[in-house]
């Protein structure tokens, strides 16, 4: 099926894969809001939402419906185009990251090798970092276009936090990249499947640093200063109402899902089911087992994200910056140097 020297089946296959991945991330993000409220309730000896549908399972739908029917307020003297661009950009960048994540191995379906990864680019991690940095623009534009000084200050707060923690995140990753020698997420996963151990065993400190930094990147407690609804005036989405506010909040949950998947891929073996030899299984079974493993790890990480949020109080801003610049970055550098030395003396 080649028309104009163009593989149409490949295009269709990728389009379907993209549609599936985006709908899965939307559904997961939707139910992450429900899970968040349930986890919060359980940790505080409450029950959480349990009225809409059995066990409150229709609660996210009710919330979404409510947000859609709320009045759309655009402040006067705000830049209308940028005001709408802010949440759209936040949503867009949140979705884009999922393109390079290997969701499963290659599998033979109908005589074609189907790859469960939208794009296996050799700079996968760099791509993720690039897109995540773009996510800061959504925050900045939203805060700036609101024409409200508190929104603007919150946006600056959020942007500076994101940038500071991106540094430590990148440094903690360099140590991992020295071990794997590749930036492609597919290669990193394959190495973990073929090797004996997952990367977390070789890089426990790196994992911890990366985890903490992703908490900060996702604006999750204890680093949810950009929002800080109780003491710092709501944050950059103060002037937003209706589904535009919903988009900002929803983008955060998608980000959380994607960053949990990235952590699972980088450090916890991706779609590698522990104690199971995938090469023994048939194609489709291996695929399903892989998906189960990846989603299991991701959901466990999401639960830990929530667990941390409902345990720890919020950091003060100077504490946040202290931890980032004086705590995490030196640790990441140290980790990098040690890993470098070990790689130099053992592998060559």
């Amino acid at each position, binding site marked *: 099926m080649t028309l104009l020297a163009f593989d149409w089946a490949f295009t269709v296959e990728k389009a379907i894969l993209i549609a599936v991945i985006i709908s899965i991330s939307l559904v997961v993000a939707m139910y992450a809001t429900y899970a968040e409220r349930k*986890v919060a309730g*359980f*940790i*505080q*000896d*409450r*029950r959480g939402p349990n009225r809409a549908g059995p066990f409150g399972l229709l609660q996210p739908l009710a919330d979404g419906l409510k947000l859609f029917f709320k009045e759309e307020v655009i402040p006067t003297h705000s830049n209308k185009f940028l005001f709408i661009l802010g949440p759209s950009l936040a949503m867009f960048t949140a979705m884009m990251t999922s393109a390079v994540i290997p969701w499963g191995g290659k599998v033979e379906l109908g005589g074609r090798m189907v790859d469960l990864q939208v794009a296996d680019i050799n700079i996968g991690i760099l791509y993720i970092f690039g897109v995540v940095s773009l996510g800061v623009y959504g925050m900045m534009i939203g805060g700036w276009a609101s024409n409200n000084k508190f929104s603007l200050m919150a946006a600056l707060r959020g942007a500076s936090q994101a940038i500071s923690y991106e540094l430590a995140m990148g440094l903690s990753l360099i140590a991992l990249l020295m071990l794997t020698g590749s930036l492609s997420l597919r290669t990193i996963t394959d190495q973990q499947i073929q090797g004996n151990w997952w990367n977390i065993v070789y890089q426990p400190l790196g994992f*911890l640093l990366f985890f903490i930094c992703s908490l900060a990147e996702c604006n999750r407690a204890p680093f949810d200063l950009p929002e800080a609804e109780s003491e710092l005036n709501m944050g950059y989405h103060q002037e937003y109402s209706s589904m535009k506010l919903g988009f900002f909040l929803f983008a955060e949950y998608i980000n959380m899902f994607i960053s949990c998947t990235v952590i699972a891929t980088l450090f916890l073996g991706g779609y590698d089911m522990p104690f199971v030899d995938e090469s023994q299984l048939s194609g489709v079974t291996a695929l399903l087992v892989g998906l189960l493993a990846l989603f299991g790890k991701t959901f466990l990480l999401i639960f830990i994200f929530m*667990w*941390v949020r*409902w*345990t*720890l109080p919020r950091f003060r801003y100077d504490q946040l910056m202290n931890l980032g610049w004086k705590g995490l970055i030196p640790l990441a550098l140290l980790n990098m140097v040690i890993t470098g030395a070990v790689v130099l003396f053992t592998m060559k």
Partner: protein
Amino acid sequence: MESLTQRAKPVDRRPMNWLEKIYLWEIFKGMSITLKHFFKKKVTIQYPEQTRPFSPVFRGLHILNRDEEGRERCTACGLCAVACPAEAITMEAAERLPGEEDLYREEKYAARYEINMLRCIFCGLCEEACPKDAIYLSETFAPANYSRKSFIYAKDDLLIPDPVTNPEEYAKAKGLIDKKKNLKS
């Protein structure tokens, strides 16, 4: 300085040691506490389906009592209205006509008997003032409503079900009254 009570706890002002300074260990301790709470029994009472049990001395909405033959006990003497500190009770007396002996116990009865549940403070003084055992405070409380008018309870809302025509409901309401009586004697 000597403390005023024995329960006072001195604040630990020692500087943080190394383990506390790196946060991590303390964070794990905190997380283990929240995890324990995650699996704890929930204390919530699912309100419309479940209700909290009331004490027998609970003072809720009023009931106007009847005797065993289903006749109203109230004679409209007005003592409850006099006793009421919130002035929530309004009544109008009427004389019993021949042929109404199965409706009213005495020669005089309350033609109109209203309690304003928004004024009422549920103190129970009406119950204590009544010489005829005619008014009691039950274990239900006033439900929410949309208008002030709906909180003025008339005789139809207050009267206990008739033991002759509706013995089941009567027994239920009567049980509450008896429980209260036993408690007092």
